[in-house]
């Protein structure tokens, strides 16, 4: 690898409405390297990248690319300078074909002004081939895995001769095997001399794929260096300003009462023959790769999906749960994954989001007692350390971690005995993650049954006393949390191993 500086941002300052977001940050990216940009939510990463992408203008500071001074006055200019930004939410059109997506807005036309389909397909196949991706240019994007959608975006930027690609949390919606695929792809990309700025909260990924890193904290440069020369907890320390443990959590005693028992639950095409039970005070984890059916399984138990066979017993009683409201009546709560799509109501205020699932509690003669709502919110604000100045603002203005805490408050207010968390720390920074873990364990200590669904094996290992691994709709293995290792989980999750009879 050549040690040539490709991009340099020097002493960038930026404030919004008088609030200093960047207080003189510098960033140096070499040609053909993968550079990790780290920091908690609100540290200024996205502002810095938006300045590079031409979305915002810096108040002061300079940007040079290969030694030339450049000014990114708008996103188009930034693109023209070889920078492309791949956002967390992918900008692909699912109902168009791969090549149509690639050439969207820059279609090649023949001399009559019609679309030159063969040429576009040829170039698409060429670019994808170079990157080692095997998809047909004429397949529809909606039929592809999420990781491929990401490749399409990246291929699109290469088509526009980008030399620096910014990836914002590229793995947040990918399953583990897709992540592997993405990393192979990134390594190929690096070989061709393209530089990558890689934003992620997942430090293991940083260790695996990145060459150097820059850490921001509160709008300032907290540190930079070569990934190999640092330990992960040193980098974490730079991000949060204090050390955070990765130890397994201590658990209180599990009680004898079985709160939830599931017998032979099946839904055609989603999952089959699911058997498990959860006791009061127990934290149980479900993990697996994408398509393992765990989300669908618990959506059924929560009544979001109705067509299932088998038996669900809550506190020993067989229940037919065909609507989430019945689940809530049976004292089951569910914090779904993909917060934005499934959990928050972005037009409602923070307080109203908190009370949404337990409005009957606030009912006084048919009218809502809004002062009681405010009072309850203040309670949760202190309990969960929710950072919000004015709880009457709409919830979408909060950071991901705080939104998730409000969702937690919402379900605490509904007061379930069984609480299901699907990917509870998706897109949340390290500090907030820790707080959410502590709350989950506090709930278990209060005698609630906790179920955690996560694709991140380390998260499951840290939190759970019992771990179920799913593969293609079946539980293929179960472990005692203290004895399980990541390797054991992975070998079952990938379908490499299975032990049908140990389930129970």
């Amino acid at each position, binding site marked *: 690898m050549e040690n040539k500086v490709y991009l340099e941002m020097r002493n960038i300052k930026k404030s919004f409405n008088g609030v200093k977001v960047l207080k003189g940050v510098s960033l140096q990216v070499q040609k053909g390297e993968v550079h990790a940009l780290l920091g908690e939510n609100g540290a200024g990463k996205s502002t810095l990248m938006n300045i590079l992408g031409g979305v915002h203008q810096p108040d002061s500071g300079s940007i040079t690319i290969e030694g030339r001074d450049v000014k990114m006055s708008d996103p188009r200019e930034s693109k023209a300078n070889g920078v492309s930004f791949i956002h967390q939410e992918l900008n692909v059109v699912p109902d168009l074909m791969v090549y149509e997506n690639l050439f969207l807005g820059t279609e090649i036309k023949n001399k009559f002004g019609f679309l030159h389909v063969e040429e576009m397909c040829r170039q698409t196949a060429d670019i994808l081939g170079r990157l080692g991706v095997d998809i047909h240019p004429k397949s529809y994007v909606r039929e592809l895995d999420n990781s491929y959608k990401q490749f399409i975006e990246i291929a699109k930027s290469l088509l526009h001769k980008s030399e620096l690609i910014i990836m914002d949390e590229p793995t947040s919606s990918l399953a583990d095997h897709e992540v592997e695929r993405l990393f192979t792809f990134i390594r190929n990309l690096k070989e061709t001399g393209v530089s990558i700025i890689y934003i992620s909260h997942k430090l293991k990924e940083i260790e695996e794929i990145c060459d150097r890193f820059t850490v921001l904290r509160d709008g*300032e440069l907290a540190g930079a260096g070569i990934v190999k020369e640092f330990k992960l907890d040193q980098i974490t320390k730079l991000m949060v300003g204090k050390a955070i443990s990765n130890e397994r959590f201590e658990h209180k005693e599990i009680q004898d009462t079985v709160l939830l028992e599931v017998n032979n639950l099946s839904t055609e095409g989603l999952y089959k023959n699911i058997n498990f039970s959860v006791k009061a005070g127990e934290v149980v984890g479900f993990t697996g790769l994408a398509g393992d059916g765990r989300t669908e399984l618990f959506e059924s138990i929560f009544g979001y999906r109705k067509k299932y066979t088998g038996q669900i017993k809550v506190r020993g009683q067989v229940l037919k749960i065909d609507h989430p*409201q019945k689940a809530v009546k049976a004292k089951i709560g569910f914090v779904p994954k993909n917060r934005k799509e499934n959990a928050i109501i972005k037009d*409602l205020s923070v307080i109203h989001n908190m009370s949404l699932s337990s409005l009957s509690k606030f009912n006084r003669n048919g009218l809502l007692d809004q002062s009681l709502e405010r009072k309850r919110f203040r309670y949760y604000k202190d309990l969960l350390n929710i950072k919000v100045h004015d709880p009457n603002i709409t919830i979408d203005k909060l950071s991901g971690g705080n939104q998730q805490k409000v969702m937690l408050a919402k379900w605490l207010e509904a007061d379930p005995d069984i609480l299901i968390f699907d990917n509870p720390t998706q897109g949340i920074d390290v500090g907030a993650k820790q707080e959410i873990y502590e709350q989950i364990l506090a709930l278990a200590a209060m005698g609630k049954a906790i179920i955690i669904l996560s694709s991140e094996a380390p998260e499951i290992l840290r939190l759970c006393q019992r771990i179920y691994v799913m593969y293609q709709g079946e539980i293929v293995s179960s472990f005692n949390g203290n004895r399980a290792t990541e390797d054991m989980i992975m070998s079952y999750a990938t379908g490499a191993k299975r032990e049908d009879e140990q389930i129970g």
Partner: protein
Amino acid sequence: MNRLANPELKEPAKQGSAMGSAKSRLTWIWSEYSVIIAFVIIFILAAIVSPRFLDINNQLNILMQVSIIGIVALGMTVVMLSGGIDLSVGSVLALVGVLTVLALNATGSILVGILTALASGVIIGLLNGLLVAKGKIASFIATLGMMAGARSIALYIAEGGSISGEVSGFTAIANTELWVIDVPIIIFILMAVLVYMLMHKTSFGRHVYALGSNEKAALLSAIRVDRVKIAVYSLAGLLVSVAAIIETSRLNSISSSSSGMQYELDAIAAVIIGGTRMTGGRGKVIGTFFGVLILGILNNMMNLMNVSPHLQGFVKGAIIIVAVVFQKRE
């Protein structure tokens, strides 16, 4: 570097944030109350242009004229907040009117007439709700079908013409004044207050907002989304029937071909001018109230200024577009 930079930065940062909050406060006032500001501006303009505008009789006249469409628009607001639309309101108004007069003439009882109106309005609304919630038909399509169907049945029953009431006293509903204020105005304001309370102070209202903003999240929050939808369209039907009673009582007759014609457009216009988002989840009942008044004042102004009735639609259309353009600037 930290130690040097921080003390210097503190002061301007504070000032800046004070300025920033003043600015954000201003934008907040604008985004919350832009309809009212627009209303005040139009009101003042109207008063300047035409001295007769401020006359108390003219003011009451405006309120009287908007009361029917206003009541319909209140129901439309609820439907649109839930993320739907109800195109059938005009036709349903005509059908309910026809059924009301039939019941009135058959029994001679005003009470039976009113109950018939309310029941038929709710039933038709319920049907809309079932089509949307259980039949999973897009509200635009379901209510478009209802719009054609209801009008057709009204025409069939009344053989294409008008039918008149034969019971004396029925006309009193719309033609009585309490002190100086006409009863329809009172009903409109009362309905506005009730719908306001319902949407902003009860769990039903909260559920409607949640549904309009994010249906899947609302369902996963254990809200009975289907029932909320059915209730929303039933409520719209109920309000249409209240409007139908006033419309029928005003002239003691209802025309199966022309009554309620294009009311859906006026109602949607009022809701949009009032700042409710087409896709649901955001908007206010007060906004619709002032949206209705703005439309009424514009009509009145144009009449006072002798603008050709053929041009009035153009002005209305332009106002809707201008209103939406301004609301986008948040």
